[in-house]
């Protein structure tokens, strides 16, 4: 206790000093002069309260942390049924979830479906970045660049050449992959922090390029009126464009604007399911093993004839292509895109999704993506504190479950002894 006294006094002093300066006094303008005004009595009592709290917390920090250690840390695995039962229930559960995903939009409000579509975009982005960060262990802070490439590919191709969403989707993925390859080739010899810095720079380059190449991309004004996807040529608008046919006319039902929302949602579900399937397969393929091996020991990999550059590049390219698909869909859903949507904070959010979910874990990333998009919507009143909550959640996570919600367990091939 004696030893804790001095740090506690010090911390209380710092708190007092800072709060005094930040909220204790205020500058007010009176004509041309600035005068210093002290806060009212209530504010001062709050400041005093805060100082006492800080003092007491610092003083009793050791007993408190000892108490905290005795608290059990949450154990998610304990809540699940045992291994065998889980394996048997698994396919049924997956089928149930998939059917549910297709059925529920017909029963809920339009807003909810729209939010779900947005969530699915983040799920896709999270899964894509998970390949790069979680599987291959390459820290990419400019992931949003590939998302932007995908979005602008569709927007521009649709605007200048009138290509449809379904044609542009693979093109967007390919183009984003190409960008990933071009960026990855020179930078993948860098490690850790250096790689993060370069990718961060690349993300900014793309955004600034889009912002300034005004005569092609429209600059900060963005591109609007992007065509929505169609169902085998059937449009979801009230009136058909020239030579087109609308969905409600074809089926002889009355026009309802929620048809379009639900259709977009279903497209997103399909894209996400495809993503999950592809990534699931890749994990079990030789390349998935090579990624893990490379993360563990690059030198050993080289001595066994694995080319580290090619293997890292494949992770980078693949991650980028999923961002491209997501971007293309994003542009189609919004109908309007501008460089504003592709700022660094987006990259940070996607990375946070991967880290919160547990690097490398697919289910974890999906859950984290849902949490990260739905929570801010639920807590709209706290909009201004969004970043604060964000940071708070991250700190708590790192304290309680540094390995993420559901840490990765890569499926291992087993040798069956006959």
């Amino acid at each position: 206790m004696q030893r804790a006294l001095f740090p506690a006094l010090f911390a209380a002093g710092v708190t007092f000093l800072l709060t005094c300066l930040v909220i204790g006094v205020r500058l007010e303008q009176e004509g041309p002069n600035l005068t210093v005004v002290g806060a009212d009595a209530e504010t001062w009592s709050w400041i005093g309260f805060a100082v006492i709290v800080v003092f007491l917390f610092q003083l009793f920090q050791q007993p408190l942390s000892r108490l905290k250690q005795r608290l059990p840390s949450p154990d998610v695995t304990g809540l699940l049924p045992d291994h065998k039962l889980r394996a048997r229930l698994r396919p049924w559960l997956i089928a149930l979830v998939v059917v549910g995903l297709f059925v529920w939009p017909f029963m809920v409000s339009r807003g909810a479906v729209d939010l779900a579509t947005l969530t699915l975009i983040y799920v896709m982005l999270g899964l894509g970045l998970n390949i790069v960060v979680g599987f291959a262990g390459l820290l990419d802070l400019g992931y949003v660049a590939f998302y932007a490439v995908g979005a602008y590919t569709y927007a521009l191709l649709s605007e200048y050449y009138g290509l449809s969403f379904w044609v542009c989707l693979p093109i967007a993925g390919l183009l984003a992959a190409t960008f990933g390859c071009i960026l990855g080739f020179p930078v993948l010899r860098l490690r850790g922090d250096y790689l993060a810095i370069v990718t961060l720079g690349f993300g900014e380059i793309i955004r600034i390029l889009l912002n300034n190449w005004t005569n092609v991309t429209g600059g900060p004004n963005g591109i609007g009126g992007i065509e929505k996807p169609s169902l085998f040529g059937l449009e979801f608008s009230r009136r058909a464009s020239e030579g087109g046919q609308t969905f409600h006319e074809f089926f002889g039902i009355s026009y309802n604007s929620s048809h379009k929302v639900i259709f977009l949602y279903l497209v997103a579900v399909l894209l996400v399911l495809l993503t999950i399937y592809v990534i699931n397969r890749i994990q079990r393929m030789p390349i998935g093993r090579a990624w893990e091996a490379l993360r563990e020991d690059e030198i050993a990999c080289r001595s066994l004839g694995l080319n580290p550059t090619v293997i890292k590049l494949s992770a980078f390219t693949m991650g980028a292509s999923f961002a491209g698909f997501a971007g293309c869909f994003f542009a189609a859903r919004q109908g309007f895109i501008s460089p504003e949507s592709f700022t660094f904070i987006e990259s940070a959010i996607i990375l946070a999704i991967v880290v919160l979910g547990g690097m490398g874990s697919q289910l974890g990333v999906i859950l984290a993506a849902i949490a990260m998009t739905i929570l801010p919507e639920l807590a709209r009143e706290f909009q201004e504190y969004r970043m604060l909550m964000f940071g708070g959640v991250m700190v708590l996570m790192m304290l309680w479950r540094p390995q993420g919600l559901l840490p990765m367990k890569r499926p291992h091939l087993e040798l069956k002894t006959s």
Partner: protein
Amino acid sequence: MSENLLDVSGLMMRFGGLLAVDNVSLQVKPRQIHSVIGPNGAGKTTVFNCISGFYKPTGGEIRYRGQPIQGMTGHRISLLGLVRTFQHVRLFANMTVIENLLVAQHRHLNTNYFAGLVKTPSYRRRQREAMDRAAHWLQQVDLLEFANREAGNLSYGQQRRLEIARCMVTEPGLLMLDEPAAGLNPKETSELDQLILRLRDEQDISVLLIEHDMGLVMGISDHITVINQGAPLADGTPDQVRQNPDVIKAYLGES
């Protein structure tokens, strides 16, 4: 000339002002166990690193099956069939034993993405072959029962054997072992020397060996090169080396 599997001549490696390897030459013939010995810090591992492409030698020539390989990257050299182990075990500790062996067969597997996504028959066949080869080598090094364990949980001796198996599944022509007996007990060492002999006799490969355990070296080597302070000191059969007065002075010690 070309009857040598590996032909190193005039190898030089300089780190700034330090000449770590000075004009080392050695020839490894097919189906031979060739040892490199010398005091600690003599430059044996540096020679290994030069041959296997982890360092770019500053001078000299290295030929494998007549083809010059100096300056190639490590993974290309290993694809040619020159595979090495390390002084410290470098397994993928968090992967299972069988997966360690599958990673090593990366180039034998069908790495076509499309084939993997839809599991084409040829993809399955390659996968099965890789599994069989891995199982075969696990049997050879007596680790079959541990196939589905994490490699990091094996004992030290088992990890050493797994490392050799991992090299062997790549079907090398020349196996380079850097102090494989370090840290093994006498029983494990004698098992290791049986294993190395078996590799030479049954698999028709050559082994280049760095080792301090003189019992092992003298017992199994067909040829020995002695290096001291970066420079070659002696070269010959075990008997010749054992009686060489320079070697006795610098390394073996008077008995």
